[in-house]
């Protein structure tokens, strides 16, 4: 058992002077002036600031490895077909990826790793902790499986280049419908006739509400197509990137689905990202949407995860709203809020100890903890 004493602790949307106990990798209790018992190790956090470990709900770390050049460590997109529902991100994650190391050094404790966006159906994503040598032991189980999909320019542009369908957005929609119908038909067959249904299993689970779609989307016409197909077939989805969603706030509210915005701190270098703006966070927040924020790492490396929140602080958003984007809200969208995402008794003891407040550019991540153990911090040479 450990007792962390004297820190300014981010709890209930504000910093408070609180002590907390950790046992077997979980927070046991929070309170003022807690006293150690027999064999408790006391860690002095006087003058330090404690925040929940950050969660990035949309990354490619581990499968799009840093420091390996353009190709050697890149398993992001399975380019063999525009629909690859049987591939799984977990099969390609290298736990030793430099991107994961710099992530935990920066205070990131949980990431969702998704296949890329070249395929209309890209495969299955997975949520992992950022420390470990064996990916299976890093997994944070989600109540629903995550099906990566992609709409708009990325799939149509890529497959056009291959001279294969889909060339257009129309064909992107058609391909998804076709795949969903195939899954429906497979599900209707009696058990003994199904045989090997690896190709349709994930989509059957999606239609059965045992999985949810995580959909790469930027433009409004694509968001509308997703809404149309979802209402035809009935499945749960999250809008990832959702670059243009704020341009029609009432429509966004009527959809009522969560959105994971970003990366925002990149140049809007294509028509797909024409509407990219930090203001989208505030506009959609005002519509009551459940929002989170991504780095899309390594698009923005996780070592720089705090830069987008800092810029958001220039808008009319509260500190709590901004911190939630990277902690509690991300956990809620992934369905793991009873395991991570806040400093609460019973949750995993994933947190970061900073030398000053979260929004101070000079605040150093002194230590990152996962399940009560130090896994990184800016003392590590790979922290930048």
């Amino acid at each position: 058992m450990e007792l962390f004493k004297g820190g300014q602790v981010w709890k209930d949307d504000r910093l408070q002077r609180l002590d907390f106990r950790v046992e077997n990798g979980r927070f046991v209790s929070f309170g003022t002036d807690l006293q150690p018992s027999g064999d408790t190790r006391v860690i002095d956090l006087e003058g330090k600031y404690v925040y929940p470990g950050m969660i990035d709900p949309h990354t490619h770390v581990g499968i799009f490895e840093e420091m390996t050049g353009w190709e050697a460590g890149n398993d992001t997109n399975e380019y063999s077909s525009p629909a690859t529902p049987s591939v799984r991100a977990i099969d390609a994650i290298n736990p030793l990826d430099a991107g994961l190391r710099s992530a935990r050094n920066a205070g990131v404790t949980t990431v969702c790793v998704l296949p890329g966006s070249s395929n209309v159906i890209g495969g299955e994503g997975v949520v992992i902790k950022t420390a470990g040598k064996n990916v299976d032991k890093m997994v944070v189980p989600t109540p629903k499986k995550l099906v990566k999909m992609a709409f708009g320019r990325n799939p149509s542009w890529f497959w056009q280049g291959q001279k294969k369908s889909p060339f257009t957005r129309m064909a992107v929609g058609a391909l998804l419908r076709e795949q969903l119908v195939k899954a429906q038909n497979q599900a209707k067959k009696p058990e003994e006739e199904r045989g090997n249904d690896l190709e349709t299993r994930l989509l059957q689970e999606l239609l059965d509400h045992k999985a949810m779609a995580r959909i790469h989307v930027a433009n409004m016409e694509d968001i509308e197509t997703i809404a149309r197909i979802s209402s035809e077939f009935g499945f749960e989805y999250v809008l990832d990137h959702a670059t243009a969603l704020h341009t029609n706030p009432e429509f966004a509210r009527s959809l009522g689905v969560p959105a994971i915005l970003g990366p925002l701190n990149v140049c809007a270098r294509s028509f797909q990202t024409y509407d990219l703006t930090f203001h989208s966070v505030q506009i959609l927040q005002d519509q009551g949407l459940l929002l989170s924020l991504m780095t899309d790492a390594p698009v923005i490396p996780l070592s720089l995860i705090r830069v987008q929140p800092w810029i958001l602080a220039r808008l009319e958003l509260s500190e709590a709203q901004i911190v939630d984007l990277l902690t509690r809200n991300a956990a809620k969208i992934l369905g793991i809020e009873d395991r991570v995402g806040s400093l609460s008794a019973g949750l995993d003891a994933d947190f970061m100890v900073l030398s000053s407040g979260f929004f101070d550019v000079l605040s150093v991540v002194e230590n990152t903890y996962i399940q009560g153990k130090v896994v990184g911090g800016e003392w590590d040479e790979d922290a930048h």
Partner: protein
Amino acid sequence: MKTLIKNGTIHPVTSPSFVGDILVEDGKIVGVEPGIQVKADTLIEASGLHVFPGLVEEHCHIGIHGEKTNQVSDNDVNEWSDPVTPQLLAMDGVKPFDEGFRYAISAGVTTLNIFPGSANPIGGFGVTLKNDLDVPYQERVLLERSGMKMAMGENPKKTHQESKKIMTRMGTAAVIRKAFSDAIAYRKKKDEKGFDPKNEALLQVLDGEFKAHVHAHRADDMLTILRIRDEFGFQLSFEHATESHLIADLLAEKGVELAVGPMFTARYKIEVNNRTLRTPGILEKAGISDISLITDDPVIPILNLPIQAGLAMHHGLSGDLALRAITINPARNLGLADRIGSIEKGKDGDLLVCDRDVLDPTHRLLFTLVNGKVAFDSSKQELVL
């Protein structure tokens, strides 16, 4: 036309900060002191606020690499037809109405140097613009030729491998040596051969009229170009220099200028594997003060120019040099330190008013002045973020 900023905490960069006033008349700063009493056309009450000189971006591709489109129709950054294109002018490729200039105003950047890309070992002349969106393009130009863009490392090699013009780093070095040797030979026989724009441009570099701004990430690429410089003799500014911390002592001894960054990228190319925000601090400790920081926009958005400086400070750079690295140092690197980069009498009225330190990434920009005119006013416009 008089603009008066009253009671601000003024950060002149080249002298200590103080609380006082700034008077700008006909585009130039005419007074920097407490208690200026004058009837101004525009009055900005700045008590409790911070005033900085307009920021200077030493290396970006705004306007030449179309913001928001990224299509051939709007991308004029690399002239891939030939590895040696010193005769090109970035000025001829810039779209003056590109959205990027508006983003730069919101980022507090009042002067931008725009280079050709890094596909060619010798790429062409950059152009330096005052970011004054109210005047015609020609009037924004501060330097028609700001310096010769050159490039080492992965980019020229990758670009010209297909046409088999360059296959290795040795090949890139050889292409550069040949180009300069040809220029020297051309000078000797100029009367017979007639005017050649390529060789003329290279001679301007060899004669010290323009500096070579060499894209080099890796230390070995930097060492190669130092070797070539010692052979031919030209002035040198390293661009990117993301491994410069590995040879900091040697660079201090050689006395070259460094434009470092961007340091917000993932380590996606092998040549940026050692990029770290610690680089500027390590260089400073080695005694190097000629450091500018660059965003290379659109590699990272220009908004990050001061944020990167703030994070370099987080990783060991002094606050003083962090601010200099985005103001007076890039101004000096471009040869414009007599006009821009600090708040001094006689300099251009390029000023920022912020609610706190510009190096604090949560700061709000309230006003940007370019040549004494209000180019951004947060009470009237929404910040382009």
